Structure formats: structure tokens, C-alpha cells
């Protein structure tokens, strides 16, 4: 955990993302124009968020198998970092769509309701709400072992229910989001191969940054734990 080669990798990948992401040629799409470069920033937030939530659930399962409080701390911290990245994804998504497909000059998007109806937003809003509820649940239980156990159970249950919702909801509601058939950026019909060269490293870089922040928080959590014992 304290070896740092991946931190260097994260920095290198992010530097590469920022430079190559801004300088390399991108395919020209009518509505998106240069904003397609947001793929390296906005979309990566979602990917990193989902990866961090997944790690959180894996640690929840580990906790239930071993009842080692350490895994509970890890699980919780990954969830909070995931929430932060999710909120950033939300904010950046709002900016991006305001100037592209959900143009405020278009009367169809005057109200916030019309924007919030977007299925991909619903999917991620559900994910964020689940993890907010997870934090609320945690705070409501005083006993440490009980809190760890119950919140791990909820974490696993909610995560297992989240995946169907991410798959189902976009297929039920109409959307203007690019990549309508299936999950955006998962199928690369709409993403040029030249973008993939930057996109994959960008996802890894952002995720590693999230992991880095989380490990710092885990270390704080473990120190706090040790002090109270």
C-alpha cells in the first residue's frame, strides 16, 4: 500500500491526458466540436466513480468474510471518494450539456426537470443517492462492529441492485445523450480509435488519483482507530 510506483504512474498518465487530450486531433462531430475532449475528463469521472464503488463493495464482502474492522474503514473511504468523483462528474456533465445537446436556448430544455429526466443522470443520481444513504446509515449506528456489519450488508445489497438499474433505465427512457444504444463510451462505435489512445490511459490515471486520495484517508482512518484503542 505504501509503495508509490502507481502514484507516479497516475501523475504521468494525467499529464499525458491533459497534454495529449488537448493537443491531439479529434474527430469532428457537428454538435460537439471540440467539447468531445471532455470525454477525457467528464466520462472518466464516472468510470473512476464506478471503479471506486466496486472496490468499496469488494472490501465490504471482505469484511463480512473476516470481520476485520480494517476492511470496513477501507470500504467506507472508497465510497466517499467515489461520491466526490460522482459529484464532479455531475457538475461537469451539467456544464457540458448546457452548451451542447441540452442547449438552454432550446425551449425544450428551459426547465431543470427536462434536464434531470436524462436517463444517464438518473442512473448516476441513483448511485450517488445509494452511497449517501450508506453514509446516513453508518452515522445512525453507534456500535462499531454492528455499524460495520450492517453497512457492509447494505453496501452489497445496494450495489447488486444498482447494476440492473444502470442497465435497465437507459433502455426504457428516451435520451439525447450521445451513445444512446447501450452504455455511453462502453461501445466505441461513436468513439474514434484516435481517442481511445488517450481515453484508456485517462481512465486509469483518474482512477489511480482517486485511489491515491483514498489511501491517504484510509491511513488517517487506521491511525484514528489505533489511537482510540
Amino acid at each position, binding site marked *: 500500500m505504501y509503495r508509490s510506483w502507481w502514484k507516479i504512474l497516475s501523475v504521468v498518465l494525467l499529464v499525458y491526458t491533459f497534454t495529449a487530450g488537448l493537443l491531439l486531433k479529434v474527430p469532428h462531430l457537428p454538435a460537439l466540436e471540440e467539447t468531445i475532449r471532455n470525454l477525457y475528463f467528464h466520462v472518466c469521472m464516472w468510470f473512476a466513480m464506478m471503479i471506486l464503488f466496486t472496490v468499496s463493495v469488494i472490501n465490504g464482502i471482505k469484511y463480512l468474510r473476516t470481520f476485520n474492522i480494517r476492511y470496513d474503514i477501507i470500504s467506507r473511504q472508497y465510497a466517499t471518494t467515489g461520491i466526490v468523483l460522482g459529484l464532479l462528474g455531475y457538475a461537469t456533465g*451539467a456544464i457540458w450539456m448546457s452548451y451542447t445537446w441540452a442547449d438552454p436556448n432550446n425551449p425544450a430544455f428551459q426547465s431543470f426537470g427536462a434536464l434531470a429526466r436524462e436517463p444517464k443522470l438518473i442512473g448516476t443520481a441513483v448511485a450517488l443517492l445509494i452511497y449517501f444513504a450508506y453514509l446516513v446509515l453508518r452515522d445512525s449506528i453507534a456500535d462499531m462492529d454492528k455499524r460495520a456489519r450492517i453497512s457492509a450488508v447494505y453496501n452489497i445489497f445496494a450495489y447488486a441492485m444498482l447494476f440492473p438499474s444502470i442497465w435497465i433505465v437507459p433502455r426504457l427512457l428516451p435520451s439525447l445523450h450521445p451513445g444512446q444504444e447501450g452504455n455511453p463510451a462502453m461501445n466505441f462505435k461513436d468513439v474514434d480509435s484516435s481517442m481511445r489512445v488517450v481515453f484508456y490511459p485517462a481512465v486509469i490515471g483518474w482512477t489511480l488519483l482517486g485511489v491515491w486520495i483514498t489511501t491517504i484517508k484510509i491511513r488517517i482512518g487506521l*491511525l484514528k482507530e489505533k489511537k482510540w484503542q
Partner: protein
Amino acid sequence: MKKSAKIFFLLLTGILSIGRLAAQGGETSGGLDQTMRSSGRIYVVVAVMLTILAGLIIYLIRLDRKITRLEKE
């Protein structure tokens, strides 16, 4: 958590409302809206990058304060 969430929502609503306000006057009135649309809308990318940077920095400052408090105890 609560405080940072509040900050993010403020940021989000602020950005949204700026976009909306800028757009109220229609295409010609310009201002921020026109800037954002110029040069192939590259400024949208700039705004997105700045938001992520700002978010992460705010988060780090919060973390920093938390550790300081922990050290004092």
C-alpha cells in the same frame, strides 16, 4: 461530508444558473454564452477541467483541515 456536499451543490447550481442566465437573452446577446461557443467550444472543456480541479482542491483542503484537527487532539 455535509459541508463539502453543500459546496458542490452551490457550485453546480451556480454554474447551471450562469449558463441559463447567459442564454436568456438569446443567441445574439453574447457575453459568456458567446465566449463559450467560440473556437469550437473549447472553453467548455476549459470550464470542465477547472471544475474538476477546483473540486479536487476543495476536497484536499477539507482533508488537510481534518488531519490538522486530528493532530491537535
